[in-house]
Structures are given as C-alpha cells and as structure tokens.
C-alpha cells in the first residue's frame, strides 16, 4: 500500500497545512530551530520537516534536558539521533522546583531555552503545541512573537489573516506552531500511517501507560491496557480524561499554564 492509500483525507489536509507553515518559516526567518521533546508530537514535527524540506531536516533540533527524564526517553533519544541523523542541540536546564508550577518542568525549561536561543541567535523556534491540549494553548497564533524579555504578550497578539502575518522587528524570537490544528488522535493516526518511532512509555505496561511524557518526577501514568497504536486510538476515542492530566506543571488550576506561558514556557 502506498502512503496515499493509508493516509485518510483528514491526515492529508492536516499535513499539507503544516507543511505550508513550515516552508513559510524557512523562507521568512534567517535561523530557525525545532524544539524536540522526544514526545509523540515533536517527533511527528520532525517527520513533517522531512516532508516539507524534501527528505531532510534543514535546521537543528533543540532538546531541553535536566538529566531527569525517564531512562526509556534517553534510550529513545539516542536511537532517533542515530537513525534519523538529527542535528541535536541540548539546552541544559536546572532541576529545581519553581514557585509557579511547583515542579522543575516549568520556568527552568523556559530559562534553559532562552539561554540557548540567545547564544545561538535563533530567530524562530518551531514548537509542537496543539490547541486541544489546553485552553491557553488554544489561544495561540501559528506565528507568535516573544518580546525582548522572552515574554508572550498575550493581550496584544498580532493579527494573522489568511496566510498573512506581521513582521516582528522587536521580538527576541518568533514561535512557529505548525501543529496547532491537530488533535491527539490525529498524532497517533499520523504516526501509524508514517511508521514514526515512539517512546515505549506510551504503551501500557502492568495496566498503566503514559499519555504525555515529561520528567520522571513530575509525570504520572494513567490506567490503560493499550499496548499498540491501534489500541491507543481506540482508547482515546472514548476516554473522559484529558491528555495532560498526568503532567503536574500544567493544570488548569490557579492558571498555572497561563502564567508559565507568559514567561516563555511552551
């Protein structure tokens, strides 16, 4: 079977839209980078980059690391770098709890990213957030400037009309969000259709699996028996639990996600 036969029309439409956005970013910015968390979404993003740029990822991938990811995640990272030939840059993050999120995954990650972007002078950062993950992420633009202090001025977001975007001369960098319109199930269906490798932690072991993977000390698994992508897709179509319920740092409660994102979190 060809990819065209496996991919349904929905996935094709999602993919085409993302490819257009990625190509616009490459045409408009001098030095873009893509954020790679090793998770399912940003790995799909690497695949979309390959498709957009005719087979290779023409810019570096950034991974934020405090040394406290799961062992399975490190193994997956090594495998991907080797097999996909990723040009990987590590943003070294501290591992201490911040006052807003109460975890080490919030402001430390934003801070580590800020340092690396400044040092390497990246002017655009491709980030794999989706609207359906969180109400605050749903307020994002495809092309979203961060000011000199790395902040998101959410009260004055620029117009984005058809494919047209403003130019941001005063930005420290601009976030590009090509996956904004995808849903969690889309990510899995696309991963399956394109044989994209995934971290084994996503699959159920002893009746539990991870739906969103972060640091080992701030991510909890949820009850599941889904051992294959097909089973995950089936499970997601009926679950009443939200995707990032297992991630301590971005609860809706107390507007933690909004406060973190204002300060440069993804």
């Amino acid at each position: 079977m060809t990819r065209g036969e496996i991919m349904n029309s929905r996935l094709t439409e999602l993919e085409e839209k993302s490819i257009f956005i990625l190509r616009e970013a490459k045409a408009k910015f001098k030095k873009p980078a893509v954020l790679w968390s090793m998770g399912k979404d940003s790995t799909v993003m690497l695949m979309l980059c390959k498709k957009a740029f005719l087979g290779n990822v023409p810019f570096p991938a950034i991974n934020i690391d405090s040394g406290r990811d799961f062992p399975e995640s490190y193994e997956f990272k090594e495998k991907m770098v080797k097999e996909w030939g990723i040009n990987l840059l590590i943003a070294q993050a501290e591992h201490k709890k911040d006052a807003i999120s109460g975890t080490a995954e919030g402001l430390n990650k934003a801070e580590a990213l800020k340092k690396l972007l400044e040092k390497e002078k990246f002017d655009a950062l491709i980030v794999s957030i989706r609207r359906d993950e969180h109400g605050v992420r749903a307020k994002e633009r495809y092309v979203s400037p961060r000011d000199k202090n790395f902040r998101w001025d959410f009260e004055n977001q620029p117009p984005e009309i058809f494919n047209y975007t403003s130019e941001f001369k005063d930005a420290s960098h601009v976030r590009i969000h090509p996956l904004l319109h995808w849903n969690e199930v889309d990510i899995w269906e696309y991963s399956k259709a394109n044989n994209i490798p995934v971290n084994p932690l996503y699959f159920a072991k002893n009746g539990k699996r991870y739906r969103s993977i972060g640091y080992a000390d701030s991510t909890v698994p949820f009850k599941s028996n889904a051992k294959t992508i097909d089973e995950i897709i089936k499970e997601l179509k009926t679950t009443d639990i939200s995707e990032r319920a297992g991630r301590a740092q971005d609860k809706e409660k107390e507007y933690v996600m909004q406060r973190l994102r204002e300060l440069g979190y993804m």
Partner: protein
Amino acid sequence: MKQEIPIVIIGHQDHGKSTLIGRLLLDTKSIQKSRLKEIKETDKSSGQKFELAHLVDSFKQERERKMTMDTTRALLKGKKQLYQLIDVPGHAELISQMLTGASSAEVALLVVSVKEGIREQTLDHLEIAQLLGIEQLGVVINQMDKVDYKKRAFDVLVNDLKKILENMNYKSKHIHFFPVSAWKGDNVVKKSSRISWYDNLTVMEFLENKFLRPKIHESLSFHFLIQDIYEHENEEILIGRVESGELKQGQEIVFLPENIRTRSLRSQNLVPRKLIIKNKIKAIKTAEGNIDKAVAGQNVGIICEEKSQTKRGTIGSHPNALPNISKMLSGEIFWIRAPSQKQLVCECGTSRVNATLLKPDKIISGKKSLYKLRLEKPIAFEPQSKTILSKIVLKDQGHIIAVGNIQ
C-alpha cells in the same frame, strides 16, 4: 473522519457568542469531563461563578472581565461531521483578533440578543464576514429567556435583520433564524419545550444537515504559489502550493509577472503570445518521490526543463489561463487601524511590494472602505478565484493594518 468545518461565531459584545459555543460543546459532550471539572475547580478557587463561556475564555483576565479578549477554537463533535468553532471578541477595539479568527472560517453563525437588538458590531461583523468571502450564514436570536420566549420579539428582530442582510447582498432567502437561549439550552442542541411556536431545526440540526462545505479550488485555472527556491544536486526546485487547478508533469508553465515583457503590460488582457516566456514541468517532487500530478492544496516542488530564475512572490500559471497582472489594485478593504503614512507594503499570495495608497483620502479605523493602490511593480493576482490570490493585506512598518479583496 474528515477535516473539521470551521465556523466563526460573530456578533456584538455580550450577545452570547462564547456562551453559545459553551452550550454546543456541553450538550454534544464535545468537552471531556475531566477538563470541565478542572475549569469548575479553577472558577471556585478564584472566587468566580462558573459560566459556559469559560469553556473557551481560558485566560484569567477574560473570566475576570467577563469578555473574550482573543480568538480561540474548539472542536465540536457532530454525529456526521466535526466542526471547529471559532470564538472571536465582540468589542470594537479587538477587531484585529476578530479578523484573525474569522479569516479562517468557511461559514458564520451570527448571534444577536433579542433584548438588545442590532448593534454596531452586529453590522461590522457582517460586513467583515462578507469581505472575507464567507457566504453561508445562520442567525441565532439569543437570550429568548429574557423576553419570556415571546414570538413577537423574535419576529420583529428577524424582520429588521432580513432587511439589513438584503442590503448587504446576503441571500436572505437561504438564511435560517433560530430562537435560542444559549444560557438555558433552548434550541441549541436540544429542542425547546418553552418555545412551542417554533417547530423547526435546532442550531446543531442545522449544522449537521444544511451547512455544506464550500468546494475547493480544483476546478479553477491552475496557479502555483511560489514560496521559496531550494537548490538540490545542482537543480533548482521551486517550492510552493497549488493554489487552484491541477499541475501535471510535462505541462507548460509561465512565471508571472516576470515572464511577460513589461511593455505589454499596458494592455494586460491583450498580451501578444510571443512575449510570454514559456517553460515546461520536468518533475513534480515530494519528500516521498516524484509524482505525476498535484491538485489544489498540495505542497510540492517543481523542477522545470529550463532554469526559471524565478523567486518567492511569483505565480506559476498555464500559458492559456493567465492571471491578471497589474500595478494598480482596487477593491474593498477593512481598516484595523489608519496608516501612519501613504507608503505601505502590500502582500498578495507570497508577493510583497511597496505600495502607495491613492484612495480613500479619509480612513476610519474599524470600518470598511473602497481602496485604490499603486504598486511599485506589477504583481499577478486572480480577483474571481476566492483563493489567497484575490486577498491582500496592507502593512505599515511591518504590522498588518488592513485586509482587503481585489475586484
């Protein structure tokens, strides 16, 4: 599952746009229980009363100020189809956020409070929807609970709206009007027992049965929007999207505006054939290999028989179906704000040229007008296409200040 149909909910502030979205999401079970619980807990811990609008008004400030500050989208799960509900602010000063949301919609639902009636943003939003090319409309007469569900109040408002819509050239015969209380849940997803005089479709039934997705642009003339040029193994690859029509390997192609000699531009519709420089498609490239043809919406790379030496901003077209080419543009435009100078930048598709504003003389922020522009150099465009090649934005010092169509 197909791609969602994007629907923008438009109307004046406080007429219940976000509440309608909240009601649709809740009554179709499109929102996960755990997320609903989190929203309710946040409201409780911050001392606020839970509102349906909080399902989309996610910023703390939005809930405190009881208003939508920026556009957002939520997935609505219908029985037949998925929808993307686009929430936009109803305040005049947030019109740029409104345009951002509305510009990606294919259809619109207008919300009008039966108690407040037709207000300024009711009219402005209708004008914007029309300028953006939204043709399908449904009208939700909201807050029926505030007038004791009286038929007379509904009829009076519907009559007034019909006249306005006719004046704006909306085909009012095809527009449906719903008596609704989004807050109480009448006629949104469930039929209302309190409105016995209305025996017709609910908003959701209407979406599921009457809204048709507009056709994509395959049947139009072929135009290829060039975004970038990549070099690969000494070959020039033109990177872009098929905007309309169909691209086939081996077909002839012309790059516009540069492949027509400038002296022929004065009589743009009478270009002598010998002045067009033709090229041929040698290969259509994707990451998965070469393909024979590409259709509207597809992003590909093109290799031509001869090096084209073209650049971002040009259009590839078939020699027998050329787009318009001109230095003069005119049409309708909506001003987010008044420009600070006459020298602006005009973008159309991927082309970006300096432009002088000739008309109008007087610009009112947040209003529509006719315009006339003189460009520094000619661009290719396609007024009738409804694609991006018929839409422009104007930039003042890099910031988008207006959006318009070309007529």
